[in-house]
């Protein structure tokens, strides 16, 4: 069995309709095995997404627009062949992680918008005061970092200071690691060191997302 044949039959396999031929190919082909593993992981996560609060139509429209901008989906009018061709069910499944990623980003942005509207509506004086106090501090961070800190402050004001300190330290780590890597581009250890610095920032963001999702 070829990979193409196997992938055409994936919907049946996903439905539990397996036979020894599929299994033999699955065991021998790392690519198909990886694909099936990914699909299984998505299947496991899908009910969790379903159970979560249904986002509004605006969010879905924004996701659709983002996917179109990325070239991941096209309108039926522009690409009629996609409408006519019979696509296996699993082909759409790969877009789920991409949609989930966009969802998270848009969710944070959406959240940020809510925070802004809440704070401006309910406590304009406080906002002005906070902005004047936090202004120089927040200016040290990128726009993404500022949004990240604002989202944390909204959910857990006590943890915000920790994350802010962490973010400042990790940004300095990245800056220094970048300088080291640039000073000698052939230095493999300096490149790895830079990756370690980025790992730290990724961890910081991931911990916050895990905690506040």
């Amino acid at each position, binding site marked *: 069995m070829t990979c193409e044949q196997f992938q055409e039959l994936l919907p049946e396999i996903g439905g539990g309709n397996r036979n020894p031929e599929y299994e033999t190919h699955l065991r021998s082909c790392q690519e198909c095995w990886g694909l099936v593993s990914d699909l299984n992981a998505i299947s496991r996560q899908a009910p969790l997404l379903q159970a979560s609060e249904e986002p509004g139509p605006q969010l879905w429209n924004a996701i659709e627009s983002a996917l179109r901008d990325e070239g991941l989906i096209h309108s039926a009018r522009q690409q009629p062949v996609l409408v006519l061709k019979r696509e296996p069910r699993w082909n759409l499944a790969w877009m789920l992680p991409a949609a989930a990623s966009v969802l998270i980003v848009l969710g944070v942005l959406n959240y940020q918008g809510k925070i802004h509207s809440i704070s401006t509506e309910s406590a304009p004086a406080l906002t002005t005061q906070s902005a004047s106090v936090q202004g120089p501090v927040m200016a040290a961070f990128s726009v993404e970092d500022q949004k990240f800190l604002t989202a944390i402050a909204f959910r857990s004001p006590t943890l915000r200071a920790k994350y802010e300190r*962490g973010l400042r330290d990790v940004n300095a780590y990245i800056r220094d690691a970048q300088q080291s890597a640039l000073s000698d581009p052939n230095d493999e250890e300096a490149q790895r060191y830079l990756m370690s610095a980025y790992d730290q920032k990724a961890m910081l963001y991931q911990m916050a997302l895990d905690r506040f999702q």
Partner: protein
Amino acid sequence: MDSKSRNATLIIGLTIAGMICAQAETRKEMHFKVGRHATVSITNQYGPISVRPAVGREVVVTAVLSSDKVEVDQSQRGSRVDIFSHLLANADATSGQVSYEVAVPADASIVLHASSGQLRAEKMRGDVDFEEATGDVDLRDFNGAHVHIKTLDGPVTLTNIQDGYVEVTSMGGDVMMNAVNGPMVQVNSVSGKIMYDGDFGAGGEYVLTSHTGDIEAQAPAYASIDVFARSVTGLVVNDFTLEPEHTPFAIKAGSAFAGTVNKAASKVKLLSFSGKIHLKKR
């Protein structure tokens, strides 16, 4: 009111307060039958979690809830057990606290997420995935486990971790390792210190990286290592006599060293930007 009456009033008051507290605290015990290589996941916002090996194939979770402002949600799907401290309205770090004592089969994998409070596990063989914001993480007597720890500024202590795949990422917390060895030991810290005391095993890769935190590694004379250490702006000190080896870049005395000791079975990399690096001979 004389002093005797005042003392009596105080005692009665304290007794009543104690009774109220005792009433508010709730103890909940949960039992789950699981198969081999089960996974137990606990998410707890406030309070410690302690894990120890159980006899048999049962997971026993004992939760002490500090008030009625927190609930414990539980679910089991086959050999996967999920426990979640569910904070109710107006819960805070005191009223939302839950203390967990967990007994799991030694081959089970453990996933613990916490904001504060100590995470502690001992005598396990299964994999460990700990995520902790501010509390301590303490692991001891593990064998053949994958250990993944992420922490913001809580200290991490690893003791007697044999044949482990260890990966620790810490922002500000110190990381202390005593008798830790295995095929892969990686510690990445921003400002926390990294301390290693052990023989680096036989055949592993040890990568200790920090930004500003000091790195101190202590090994016996018989350690068999191929070591490379560098601090961009910090001091680098080495107590071992190294057999020189070729490096693809120039070694600057005082800020880097490289070489082998004995048969160079394990690879050791100590990297920092401004922290001091010290390879000590025990």
